[in-house]
């Protein structure tokens, strides 16, 4: 049983090595499209001593909403003759890992899956289980990804309440 959602709402983290012309206004010109696209600049390291082909190396770390936004920023950089030497981009996610053990009917597993799918900031979930529906010791593993750390707190609470109510043993993942 699984439920998958897109990574919409998840922040994409980008780390890029730029090469800028050694003339005033170049750094501002490189950072401006990030801000203009609602990006969040987390760090800028200006390597004045590291000149390659007469250009200054600058490392920028920022967060944006989607790959489309990154494409827009790259387009502006191209027009402004900002060279991109290296780029790393990934969506930051937080692992979801819960194991419940007890008398868990299939209907309850479906209900858990549905509730998790509708939960804010849950990017993807997958539910795997063992044992028959009538077994008093069925084990079900819920894994997935959350797009925000706060979602883990909500999930902890959700599973705690559910386990208390239905008398399951809850086993949370440990980082």
């Amino acid at each position, binding site marked *: 049983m699984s439920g998958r959602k897109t990574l919409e709402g998840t922040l994409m983290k980008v780390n890029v090595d730029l090469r800028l012309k050694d003339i005033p206004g170049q750094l501002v010109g490189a950072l401006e499209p990030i801000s203009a696209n609602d990006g969040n600049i987390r760090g800028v390291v200006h390597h004045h001593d590291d000149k390659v082909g007469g250009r200054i190396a600058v490392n920028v770390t920022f967060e944006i909403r989607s790959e489309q936004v990154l494409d827009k920023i790259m387009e502006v950089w191209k027009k402004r003759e900002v060279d991109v030497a290296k780029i790393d981009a990934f969506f930051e996610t937080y692992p979801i*890992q819960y194991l419940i053990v007890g008398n868990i009917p299939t209907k309850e597993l479906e209900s858990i899956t549905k509730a998790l799918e509708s939960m804010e900031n849950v990017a993807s979930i997958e539910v*795997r289980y063992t044992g028959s529906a009538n077994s008093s010791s069925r*084990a079900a593993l819920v894994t997935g990804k959350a797009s925000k750390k706060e979602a883990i707190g909500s999930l902890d609470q959700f599973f705690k309440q559910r386990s208390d109510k239905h008398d399951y043993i*809850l*086993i949370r993942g*440990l980082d």
Partner: protein
Amino acid sequence: MKVVIAGFGTVGQGIAEVIGMRQELFTKSFGQPVRIVGAFDSISFVKSAKGLDPIELVERKTATGRVGTREVDGGIKEFIEEYDFDTLIETTPTNILDAEPGYTHIMAALNAGKNVVTSNKGPLALRFRELSKAATKNKVQLRYEAAVGGAMPIINLSRELLRGETIYSLRGILNGTCNFILNRMKDEGLPFEQALREAQEMGIAERDPSYDIDGVDSACKLAILANAIFGMDVTFNDVMRTGIRSITEDAIALAGEQKRVIRLIGEINNGRLEVSPRMVPNGHPLAVGGTLNIVQLITDLAGEITVIGRGAGRKETASALLSDLLAILSEEHAKGR
């Protein structure tokens, strides 16, 4: 230094033997021997101002089941208060219902101006603040490294060597029996009951294992650590607790598919105290096997610190009691006593 040993079971006998073995260390380092001037168990007691031979005490206990030649007929509290000695070594069994008789023994010693070294979790997990206040008020030391994690020096490490650190959180495996059972379930695919039986046959688990497998022992230790390291004012009853009784082979297998193992973890984080089974990644320090205990501290300057060691056993617990005894001797020596 004159000491009295309260409780003469495995731990009491262990510290008696170690005191006998380390006389040269005491004399060389502090210019004085450590003399056992009294010892009692639940039915008998023995005393001698000149000092008792530790080997004789252990031999008599082994042969007769009694450490002393005289009957205990009440009056232990008065004995502790009135008898001339410096430090009480309290090793009676843990009682998590009312902390007795350990609490009465420790409180009587502290109020009589005597230092206390203990391995007894009950008084510390239920009445920690009262005991600490009595020690401060009477200007004596109360030390309890042996109460948590046997030979693993977590309390003294945190309170002495790491005293300049802010410790944000703590988590660890505080019960070797549970760790053994969970590990056997994973390695051999055994059901819980069979792994428990194996642990009982090997003497790792008690005949009544509920104290270990229901997380009571871990919760006691966690409460003591919360009070001692984080300055909290909590008891065993403040710890949220889930044991390992209901862990199935299926649960172990599902965790294994995620490259994780199940371990009974005690955690103190943001004022929250919890003992519960958790899925720990393979290769993580807390995925340790066997009967070992392990604690991880997260600190502001030193970052992550991990301590691992044997959590129980006659010599291991005696080692922790000895370190506390040496700390007291050291302080007394510094004061010129």
